[in-house]
């Protein structure tokens, strides 16, 4: 039998408690509803048994809602929290969100608002315990960082997990620094990515922050994801998990392409008969064949002319520039739009593929 989620409602008005008990009992997930009129009693109830969701009023005697929530955030980081209040005050709203509540809701006064409120509560009850960083949106931390980098934004992400918090500095879409638990730079970034859940806030960008991370964000995220996958399933990775990891890699590679402004990348392993892999193009196999032919022709020329090895091959058509890079174990072909800047294209291509398989 599937266990029902437990919901605790705290409000100093017994009539309100009764009303919400009846309303929440109608939710499709049929949660078990518990109520109390005081913050201190709520805390002791939370200690005694696991709850999924806490709905808390703001204005209460002795211990107010914000005090309850700040203790709850530290002691029960997994608990979903909703503030219900009749006080229309922006300061309270931002303080509540700063504490990491999932939802700040003015007590519903219309039927439509009530329905929306119930849908939100049902959605909070339905989320998986193990995944998602809670904030304005529920995204994985990796998605969140990737989104910030892709949108070229400058911000400081403050991530809170219980009593611990960390910060990640992003400047013009580039990851520049991270800090948590006495760590700084890449180690701090990796530590933060190990957290399974928590809350996040976007703080204003800090200009002039010293850069301690020089690796591209995608490379670090990929490394972290691989490390996590290995921890989660050291040897027996199911095909489904492998598919998810594969999908994730593809997404990162496409994100790298977009960030760099490139059109496509095709990689061709050195081993004979191996197939080319492509991202951002539908002509992967045709391009793979051409890469092979170009390598053979270049090698023959290099040998006969004694001109040394091929370091790169560049080409252009009406709408495209290409760079072919022979690396140790693979050859890459990177396509760039013809109207973009043409300087240092080989360097930019090298940068792009440097973390391609990491």
């Amino acid at each position: 039998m599937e266990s029902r989620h437990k919901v605790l409602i705290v409000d100093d008005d017994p009539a309100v408690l009764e009303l919400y008990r009846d309303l929440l009992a109608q939710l499709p997930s049929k949660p078990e509803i518990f109520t109390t009129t005081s913050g201190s009693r709520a805390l002791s109830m939370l200690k005694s048994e696991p709850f999924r969701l806490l709905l808390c009023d703001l204005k209460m005697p002795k211990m107010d809602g914000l005090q309850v929530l700040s203790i709850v955030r530290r002691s029960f980081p997994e608990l979903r929290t909703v503030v219900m209040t009749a006080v229309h005050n922006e300061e309270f709203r931002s303080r509540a969100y700063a504490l990491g509540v999932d939802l700040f809701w003015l007590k519903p006064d219309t039927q439509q608002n009530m329905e929306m409120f119930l849908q939100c509560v049902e959605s909070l009850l339905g989320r998986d315990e193990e995944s998602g960083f809670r904030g304005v949106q529920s995204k994985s931390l990796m998605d969140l960082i990737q989104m910030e980098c892709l949108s070229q934004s400058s911000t400081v992400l403050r991530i809170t997990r219980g009593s611990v918090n960390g910060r990640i500095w992003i400047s013009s879409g580039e990851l520049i620094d991270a800090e948590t638990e006495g760590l700084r730079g890449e180690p701090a970034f990796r530590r933060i990515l190990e957290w399974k859940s928590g809350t996040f806030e976007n703080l204003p960008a800090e200009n002039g922050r010293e850069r301690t991370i020089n690796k591209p964000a995608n490379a670090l995220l990929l490394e972290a994801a691989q490390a996590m996958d290995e921890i989660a399933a050291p040897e027996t990775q199911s095909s489904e998990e492998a598919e998810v990891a594969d999908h994730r890699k593809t997404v990162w590679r496409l994100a790298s392409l977009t960030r760099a402004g490139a059109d496509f990348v095709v990689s061709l392993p050195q081993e004979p008969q191996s197939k080319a892999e492509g991202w951002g193009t539908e002509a992967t196999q045709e391009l793979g064949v051409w890469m092979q032919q170009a390598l053979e022709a270049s090698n023959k020329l290099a040998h006969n002319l004694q001109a040394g090895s091929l370091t790169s091959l560049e080409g252009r058509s009406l709408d495209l520039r290409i760079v072919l890079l022979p690396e140790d174990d693979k050859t890459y072909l990177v396509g760039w739009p013809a109207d973009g800047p043409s300087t240092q294209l080989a360097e930019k291509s090298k940068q792009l593929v440097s973390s391609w398989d990491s």
Partner: protein
Amino acid sequence: MGFLSLFSKQSPGVQVLPSGTVTVDRNNKILATTVSSACSEDVLQEIGDHVLTLFRQARKAQLPLSELTLHFSSLKITAKEMRGGAIIFLAPKHTFNAAS
């Protein structure tokens, strides 16, 4: 003057990389060249052949290239496609232009 040849010695030669321009038509026939005659015509035709083949194969791969540049450690070959043929620029690299 045959007497002087007694003093001349055959010394091992160093292959000089071709430098200059070659224009070839679609059949790889050399139309014009500024490359020194010390470089054999066979070498130039081989370069022309590889370059034209690369353009043709690129078209088959949905990549209709109009220009190609091959960077070798000591030679840069730039080729511009011209109505099925090509004009090819050969520029050996040395210390002073290695970055180019």
